[in-house]
């Protein structure tokens, strides 16, 4: 017996976000980033408590949401006044709208398929009693074509259903936060890159990043960048 455990009923992070936006009757063109981000994170945390594997796409989206949220808190820079400053939410909104159109189209196709299933055809009649002439022999069709047809079919078969996927390790933001706190108490100050040298996988890195953002939000950690694109310094302010 195999079991498939999916992240609830959502097809992906965009699906989840759309659900949250619809559920709270929020204007998609003016998404309140703080509350939507909180709800999104809450959902992920809930999944964690159920020990469900969270696909990395969901974590990447979490990072995106947090980044948009933080950019919206920043004062608009005065250096390039002339240029219209783009709403940091714009690319996300565009993505959500595109995905919603995709869902709409999928629903249409589903209805069309259902209508089609209401209609029955008939197996072609065996016409050979009506045939007076001989069927011409096959020409140019060889045994090789037959084997080749089978090989092509074989290549078209979908990968075998892999229904159970159990990961030995689940990254949890709370755990990583504890780890960071412990290390920052010793270091007091360090660079972001140094702190995460150990994180090899993308989910691990994203989780670590989320943990840092959570600690900053809690006011226990501060972050400083002395020059554009320079190293990110983390400073311990907690306790």
């Amino acid at each position: 017996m195999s079991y498939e455990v999916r992240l609830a009923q959502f097809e992906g992070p965009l699906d989840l976000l759309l659900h949250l936006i619809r559920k709270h009757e929020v204007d998609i063109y003016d998404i309140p980033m703080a509350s939507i981000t909180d709800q999104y994170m809450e959902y992920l945390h809930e999944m964690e408590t159920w020990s469900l594997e969270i696909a990395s796409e969901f974590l990447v989206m979490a990072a995106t949401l947090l980044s948009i949220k933080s950019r919206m808190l920043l004062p608009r820079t005065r250096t390039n006044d002339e240029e219209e400053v783009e709403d940091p939410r714009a690319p996300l909104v565009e993505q959500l709208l595109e995905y919603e159109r995709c869902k709409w189209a999928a629903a249409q196709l589903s209805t069309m398929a259902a209508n089609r299933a209401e209609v029955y055809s008939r197996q072609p009649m065996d016409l050979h009693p009506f045939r007076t002439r001989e069927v011409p022999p096959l020409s140019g069709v060889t045994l090789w074509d037959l084997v080749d047809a089978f090989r092509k079919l074989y290549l078209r078969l979908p990968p075998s259903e892999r229904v159970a996927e159990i990961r030995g390790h689940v990254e949890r933001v709370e755990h990583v936060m504890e780890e960071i706190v412990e290390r920052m108490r010793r270091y007091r100050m360090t660079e972001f890159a140094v702190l995460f040298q150990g994180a090899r996988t993308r989910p691990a890195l994203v989780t670590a990043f989320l943990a840092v953002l959570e600690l900053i939000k809690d006011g226990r950690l501060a972050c400083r960048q002395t020059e554009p694109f320079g190293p990110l310094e983390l400073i311990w302010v907690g306790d």
Partner: protein
Amino acid sequence: MHLLSALEAVLFAVGSDGLETRDIASILGVSLGEAESLCLQLRAQLDERAAGIAVQQVADTWQLVTRPEYADYLKRMAQTPMQSTLSTAALEVLAVVAYKQPITRAEIDEIRGVQSDRALATLVHRQLVAEVGRQDAPGRPILYGTTSEFLRQFGLRSLDELPPLPEDLGREGVSLFQLPSDIARD
């Protein structure tokens, strides 16, 4: 009127196997007598307007057939110059039947991921594939296999001479569906 059309739809879809009166009664939810009366009504109606199709009763089985007057058109259709090659779909079905026989249409559909009735009809028509029996399962589905015409056309003395499939795939029913994922993906 409504039941008459329902009967027409049912007889149309059931194909050349036809249906017994009691099956018709149970599908339409009417008595045996009513089922028979409906069949006779449908026959009269189709006869009256000289439709392309007619109701035929053989023993206790009813089926729809083409009206004999139009046989010439069917001959012409059967005669339409047949291509000397096979379509990709027909070739694929033929390959599946050759290597997996005896096999039902549902099993062919399952392996191919698409309905195969059109391609199968072509192969039967060309006498490369034929009914070789019935599966002992609900509905007693037809089992298909290749014919001696198939062996002749492909220059084989027997089915043992079919070339083995690469990596012996398909020799057992299971191996088809246990593919290494790196091959099966695009």
